[in-house]
């Protein structure tokens, strides 16, 4: 009896559990990813709260990501099934994402496409299919300070004339600020002059007289007319326009958030290019809602996307989030049609060029940005720069090597493993190691957890990652090509040995970079540590804490401040040179000075670590030894040379060796300070590897081959200097 009742109860419980599970599975949840921040984020989340209140059966959770990591997040997580159901992103990667099967297609019936501005809808089409629903669009426009300029100019001639009135380069005031060496910002002039990047068939057709004219025009703005400052990056544009040192700025809607509250400004569309009579047409980016190919609830995701794209939500996004929205009916609302900022971007939309969404676009930026910088610097004439850009683009787009059979790789690896095992076993037997192993069992126990962790979390991922170097990656699929990637790098195919792209050139720079940095880190760190250990020194605790500040503050911001200090016209360093009566230096236009700027920044960032290590290491030296030497009449140098340094050695060597390895692979300072300038010459091996992986059409195989070569170089270096042997 009791048993049956128990069984019954268990059955009821199980049924309840099943019901419960089914219910949770049915009470659907949609995950939405985005990379908005500020007002746009708040508006989006407010709208989703509204949705959740009305639709308890289909709740939406939003996750925001830093824009810098957003793309790689999507491409990592979606194929693994960890991605969102729905995500908001810019349209320019649609070609890539649809080919790598990240996106779910939208059909003709899924939405009333006519409600959205046709340009924004068209931007989301690739291969004749629709991939997302447009939410908003972004392009640059002309910002002006209304205290200086009353009526915005409608032609470039008028713009230059007006800008000249507000330029006084001695007082560091400029008529116009924009990132003149950034292709994205230059695009307005390029298309206004009639230049093109791709033709209808997708051929790269930047090399033309029209493009050259636009380059010459931009150069004239800086040199001949002098109305635009040199080396203007985003931070300088924001600084000058905010501090009322610039009358005009070319920037996008994101600039609104950076402007001071009390700055009097207005916005106008970019002017008409006087020599062609065509309006300057900036790049247009369409932000859209995309449904993930891996979602389990495409209908739910589509409903949420349509809700966000609809008239009502569009009005909210426009008014609260300050987004230029793609939904046309939203503009019937008077709050939108009377908003001068939003209506200006609306007008700019009609004179804009949607960013090409084909995958080849990712290989366009580096060659074109470099061409712009070289023209601005006066290194080449515009037409020659465009020819160089085309050549570089073709290097990035070169056809992949032929597919090879996998069999030799597998047999080769197996053979290598067998040989290694055989050698190890033979040594083990010959040297009769078993008794030694037994006698030192505790040592293995002490080591086991560390070794196990290293094996699983470092060695295995590296081996797996290295195997990629034998493959070629094209649009999400990998083809085995044997050692072709290595062959191309080693023989410096497609570019000369002295080209900054060449492995050997970069290797030389990397070696110099490493040697100089480590030397400076250790010598400065040692000098300060020797001072800071003296017991008679008052306040040494405070000095010590102040001196580790560069290590403590996140280096993203301090590196950019250093970059600012090296600015030709506004930097503090040229300010000091000027005060001393010296000529200002254009730091990033020559290899030697750009390299010096990188090294200075990295020395500032890196010496505190060495100082701390040496402070600790100095404690191992009995002071009486040094004092005895002093009593014996040894000079300071003799004491250092024969007492302090030899005793310091065991704890200093690991820091120096590892410091060397880390500096060799320290790419973010290069990226942030010189950005590889001039012309990629200050890149180091690891930053080249990153570029091949992420900025040159995702050539993961080639990038992995670079990484393997970096590893082999470091291995050869430390083996040849005997650092792999344990000294006792």
């Amino acid at each position, binding site marked *: 009896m009791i048993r049956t009742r128990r069984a019954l109860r268990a059955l009821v419980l199980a049924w309840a559990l099943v019901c419960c599970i089914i219910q949770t599975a049915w009470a659907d949840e949609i995950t939405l990813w985005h990379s908005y921040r500020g007002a746009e984020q708040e508006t989006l989340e407010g709208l989703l709260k509204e949705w959740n209140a009305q639709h308890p059966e289909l709740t939406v959770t939003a996750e925001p*990501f*830093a824009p*810098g*990591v957003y793309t790689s997040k999507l491409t990592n997580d979606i194929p693994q099934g*960890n991605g969102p159901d729905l995500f908001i992103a*810019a349209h320019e990667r649609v070609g890539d994402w649809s080919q790598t099967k990240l996106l779910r297609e939208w059909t003709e019936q899924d939405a009333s496409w006519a409600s959205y501005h046709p340009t924004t809808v068209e931007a989301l089409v690739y291969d004749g299919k629709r991939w997302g629903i447009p939410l908003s669009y972004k392009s640059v426009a002309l910002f002006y300070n209304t205290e200086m300029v009353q009526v915005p100019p409608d032609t470039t001639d008028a713009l230059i004339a007006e800008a000249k009135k507000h330029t006084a380069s001695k007082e560091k005031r400029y008529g116009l600020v924009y990132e003149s060496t950034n292709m994205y910002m230059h695009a307005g002039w390029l298309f206004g002059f009639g230049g093109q990047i791709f033709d209808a068939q997708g051929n790269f057709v930047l090399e033309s007289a029209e493009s050259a004219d636009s380059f010459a025009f931009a150069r004239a703005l800086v040199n001949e007319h002098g109305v635009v400052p040199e080396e203007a990056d*985003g*931070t300088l544009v924001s*600084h000058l326009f*905010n501090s009322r040192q610039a009358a005009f700025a070319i920037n996008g809607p994101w600039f609104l*958030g950076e402007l001071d509250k009390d700055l009097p400004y207005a916005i106008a569309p970019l002017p008409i290019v006087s020599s062609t009579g065509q309006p300057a047409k900036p790049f247009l980016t369409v932000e859209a809602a995309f449904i993930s190919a891996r979602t389990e609830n495409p209908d739910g995701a589509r409903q949420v996307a349509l809700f966000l794209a609809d008239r009502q939500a569009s009005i909210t996004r426009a008014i609260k989030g300050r987004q230029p929205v793609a939904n046309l009916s939203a503009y019937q609302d008077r709050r939108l049609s009377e908003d001068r900022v939003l209506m200006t971007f609306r007008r700019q939309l009609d004179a804009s060029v949607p960013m090409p969404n084909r995958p080849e676009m990712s290989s366009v930026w580096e060659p074109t940005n470099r061409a712009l910088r070289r023209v601005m610097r006066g290194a080449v004439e515009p037409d020659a720069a465009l020819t160089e850009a085309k050549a570089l683009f073709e290097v990035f787009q070169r056809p992949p090597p032929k597919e090879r059979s996998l069999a030799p790789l597998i047999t080769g690896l197996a053979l290598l493993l067998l040989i290694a095992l055989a050698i190890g076993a033979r040594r083990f037997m010959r040297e009769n*190691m078993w008794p030694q192993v037994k006698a*030192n069992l*505790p040592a*293995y126990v*002490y080591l086991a*957890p*560390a*070794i196990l*962790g290293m094996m699983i979390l470092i*060695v295995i*991922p*590296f081996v797996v990652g290295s195997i990629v*170097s034998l493959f070629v990656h094209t649009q999400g699929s990998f083809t085995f090509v044997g050692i072709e990637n290595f062959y191309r790098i080693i023989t410096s195919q497609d570019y000369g040995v002295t080209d900054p792209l060449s492995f050997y050139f970069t290797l030389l720079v990397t070696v110099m970079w490493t040697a100089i940095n480590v030397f400076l880190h250790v010598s400065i760190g040692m000098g300060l540590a020797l001072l*800071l250990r*003296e017991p008679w020194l008052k306040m040494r*605790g405070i*000095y*010590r*804490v*102040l001196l580790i*500040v560069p*290590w*403590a*503050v*996140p*280096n993203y911001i301090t590196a950019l*401040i250093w970059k*600012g200090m090296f600015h030709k016209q*506004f930097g*503090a360093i040229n*300010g000091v040179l000027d005060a001393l009566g010296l000529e200002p230096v254009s730091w990033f236009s020559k290899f030697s000075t750009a390299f010096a700027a990188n090294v200075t920044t990295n020395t*500032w960032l890196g010496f505190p670590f060495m100082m*701390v290590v040496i402070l*600790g290491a100095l*404690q*191992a030296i*009995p*002071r009486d030894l040094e004092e005895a030497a002093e009593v014996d009449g040894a000079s300071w140098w003799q004491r250092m040379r024969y007492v302090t340094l030899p005793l310091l050695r*065991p*704890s200093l060597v*690991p820091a120096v060796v*590892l410091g060397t*390895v880390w500096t060799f692979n320290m790419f973010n300072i290069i990226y942030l300070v010189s950005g590889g300038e001039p012309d990629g010459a200050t890149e180091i091996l690891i930053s080249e*590897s990153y570029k091949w992986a992420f900025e040159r059409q995702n050539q993961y195989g080639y990038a992995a081959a670079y990484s*393997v070569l970096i*590893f082999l170089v470091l*291995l050869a270096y*430390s083996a040849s200097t005997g650092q*792999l042997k344990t000294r006792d």
Partner: protein
Amino acid sequence: MRTISTPKLIATHVSLMAACAIVLYPVLWVIKMALTPSQGFSMSPNPIPDQVSMHNFQHLVTMNDGIFWRQLGNSIIISVATTVIGVALACTAAYAFSRFRFPGRTLGMAGFLITQMFPGVVMAIPLYILLNRLDLLNTLSGLVLVYSTSSLPFCVWMLKGYFDTIPRDLEEAAIMDGASQWVIFTQVILPLARPAIVVTALFSFMTAWNEFILAATFLTKREMFTLPMVLQSFVGSYSTDWGYFAAGAIIVSLPVMLLFFALQKFLVGGLTAGAVKG
């Protein structure tokens, strides 16, 4: 105690103050941007703030319903756990390398160094797949495991070097007294190695505290985010909220400086000398 001549004292102070000035000069702009309510980047020649506003700090701690405190908590948990695990594993491993002569010792030491030569660019995705299989994505423990192994090689080498400088006489005396290997390790060696342990602890802490690329690869839920990820979210594709970023940078660096301030007395304790004499 020796007497120090006044010129030498003055020279030392002057050179240290000069060093501090160079070190702090760029940081003044971070402070200026943090105290200025606008989000622009300041390149003014004068790094002294012309207004003092707590707006940026306030925004940081109150945005998204105060999720900041939770994210600060995540960072602290991850960094402390990384430090504890990393230093514990490193101490035992370094002790084995320093005091035992066993087959595979050279290979093991070399192995630790070699792992530091692997460029991270190829490892992120395999590591992601591995953590996914182990169900450790989106967990703090997954990150702690990755961080503590990545800081291990330095810690092991550093500690091994320091252990080597500790005289063996001390251990031999302890063995005479009948102490076990474990007692010698914990009661004799570890207290003597305090300066090196402080350095490795600080290093492990910093490895976890400032890292954001791996964190961003492995975490997808905002309740799990760490502070560097929050900071990086102010960096847009075209513009950056510099005021918030700078305020966040200051908040991120304060604990590090406090930690260092608290730990530095162990760093300069000079214990070995006394122990040998005694």
